[in-house]
């Protein structure tokens, strides 16, 4: 089974409508690729991070790491 098919199956199992499970899986792979170049993660790390977020979302939770980014401090005088 391809990575895409496996992810689509997972999305289906987690309640995604069948018509869009593949689009979701495609988007997860695309975002994982972006995370690899943006944050220097390996493919496994990027996918694990996203799937962990998905699991939390599926449970109706927001990741505790998802905090307001620091507001820019005013320039010092």
């Amino acid at each position: 089974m391809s990575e895409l098919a496996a992810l689509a199956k997972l999305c289906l199992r987690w309640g995604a409508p069948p018509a869009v499970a593949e689009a979701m899986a495609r988007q997860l792979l695309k975002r994982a690729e972006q995370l690899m170049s943006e944050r220097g993660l390996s493919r496994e790390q990027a996918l694990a991070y996203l799937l962990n977020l998905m699991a939390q979302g599926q449970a109706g939770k927001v990741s505790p790491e998802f905090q307001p980014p620091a507001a820019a401090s005013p320039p010092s005088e």
Partner: protein
Amino acid sequence: MLQMITGSNFFCNSKAKAVFKITGEDAFSFLQGQFSNDLRTPVGGATYGLWLNQKGKVVADSVLLRIAENEFLAFSNHSLASVIQQRLQDYLVADEVNLSDETISYDRLIISGAGCGALIKDFVKSELRVGQFIQWGDLFVVPGGQLPFENYTVIGPQKSLASWCDQWVARGWVEGSELAWDWARIAAGVPAIPDDLGPTDLPQEGGLEVGVIAYNKGCYLGQEVMARLKNLGQVRRRLHVVRGRGAPPARLAVLYQGGKKIGELRSIAQHQEGFVALAMLALINLNARAGLGLTPTGPATIWLGAHE
């Protein structure tokens, strides 16, 4: 169950078109004398409006976020920063106002689709209504009020927006292009300023009156024309959603009905079977059921309305 994902549930991340910080002890009074909408909102208010010229024609648009009594953040989805800056600088004479172009530091994330409001509430731990915004760290989260479906704009530094993208992807949102967003906007009849409604047009011609033009706020640039139109007149042209099949014509293509010129095309978005567009059409003699042609004697190939 994973929240949603239908064809209309998408997010779109791009560079901001124009972002300004306006501060100084006269910031409120200066902006109130320039902006078409009433800025007498509490801190936390988000107000959409227009920058008009003295003839009441449309120069640019912005959403103004009131961060403090005399501190505002203005952003626009389509108007250029240079145009807004010039428009404000032209009338900035003796006021204590600092205008700072922050466009280069900001990205814009648009989130659209049923259920996105509930998710945003989960994220920022606060309920947001149209006309308000929330500052979440260095991000500004603003409900979109113009489109007929749930949507939010988040503006902030690119790095801070990235973690938002992760959250939406993990909840089944799919990244869309600016084109997809444009299609939704055009089909809903919402003009992009100034592409659809610009320096030759009045706000009312684009349907921008209710919630955009304030009639009881006092004087602002263009206000006399707005008051005169409300009390005495009516517009002779109006922006309409139109549709057609096949390849779209060029922007600003002239449209004909009954052998006579009746208007022109503005924004156009292509989709699989054809296109939707906004067209500025004269109201006199317009037959809404008859089609529009691209030549005086050619067949009608463009029809009013987004859907058959």
